[in-house]
């Protein structure tokens, strides 16, 4: 029991650093907080504008549930016709790559021109590809 609890604490601390060594030792079920809380969780807001193709991160806000998050996002972030579509995601559900890993994740793509399809002659009738 004690080992499980310690593993649970460590699990949270090392959440963003890939596979946790402790996971291999002890099975720790993911703990979802079910108790009532006075605090509203934080949500990240993404908006797609009328002419846009992708939802862009606009900011964050607090809300008690998903519907409230949508309404709050509408009130806080679309006052000046910023967009026509909203995505709301609980901040804790967002997993980000670590800045320390920038080199190993992204540098290798830099010097591999053979991955870019830029050596073809596109006939003018085709237009943009």
């Amino acid at each position: 029991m004690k080992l499980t609890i310690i593993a649970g604490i460590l699990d949270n601390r090392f959440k963003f650093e890939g596979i946790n060594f402790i996971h291999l030792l002890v099975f720790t079920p993911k703990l979802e907080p079910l108790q009532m809380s006075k605090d509203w969780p934080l949500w990240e807001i993404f908006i797609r504008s009328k002419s846009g193709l992708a939802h862009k991160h606009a900011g964050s806000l607090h809300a008690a549930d998903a519907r409230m998050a949508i309404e709050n996002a509408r009130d806080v972030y679309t006052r000046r016709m910023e967009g026509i579509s909203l995505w709301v995601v609980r901040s804790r559900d967002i997993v980000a790559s670590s800045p320390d890993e920038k080199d190993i994740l992204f540098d290798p793509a830099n010097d591999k021109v053979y991955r870019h399809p830029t050596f073809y002659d596109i006939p003018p009738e085709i237009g943009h590809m």
Partner: protein
Amino acid sequence: MQNKNLFDYVLRLADTSLIYGQRLSEWCGHGPVLEEDIAMSNTALDYLGQATNLFKYASELEGNIRDEDQIAFVRDLSEYHNLLIVEIPNGDYAVTIARHFLFSQFYFLFLEQLQNSKNEFLSGFAQKSIKEVTYHLEHSGNWVKRMGDGTEESHNRIQKAINQLWEYTGEFFDMDELDKNMLEVGIAVDNAALQSEWKSRIVEVLEEATLLLPADGWHHSGSKSGKHTEHFGFILVEMQYLQRTFPGAKW
């Protein structure tokens, strides 16, 4: 003036929007949470926007002898004809939400009918305004449910608020001489006909919010003849201060 009846009818709508916008804007900077502060301020602006359109039309009907600001801000207490519910104090957030819900449900049904008005301006105004009022109804309804089915404190506060505001809701459905005349020429809405639909929709939300429907009793009225509650004078003092101190002031 060509059509005094139409002018008076438009003024009633304009006054309700103006005074409601004025009341709601008192929340700006004082909201319970940041997101609701912004939401309520937005709502206040929605109503001030409606008021602007209506007062501009009223000014046209009068032959432009007064502009919309003069009509809106420079009248005496008994010349305002807003619904009484929008002039009572905001109270705590439960009172504000309860009022917002009770009023929005009526105003939604009212605008739905006003879209069919033979008056082109009013019909267009209704089509445009119903979008924002639909949102207000959705927003306030959700909050009523959250407060009602929330903690013991929130439940008690929202129940108390609904009980307190109930006696102001009867006025929504009054039809006086002017209303009846305008209804006959196809311009006005039959307020009385909206009552049963309004009540059943209110009941639906209250039930989900585990709240009780107040018993029907005496209802406030009098705004159509310019009678107001004791709170109204204080609103005018703040609202009219600028125009009365610097008459004709412009930005």
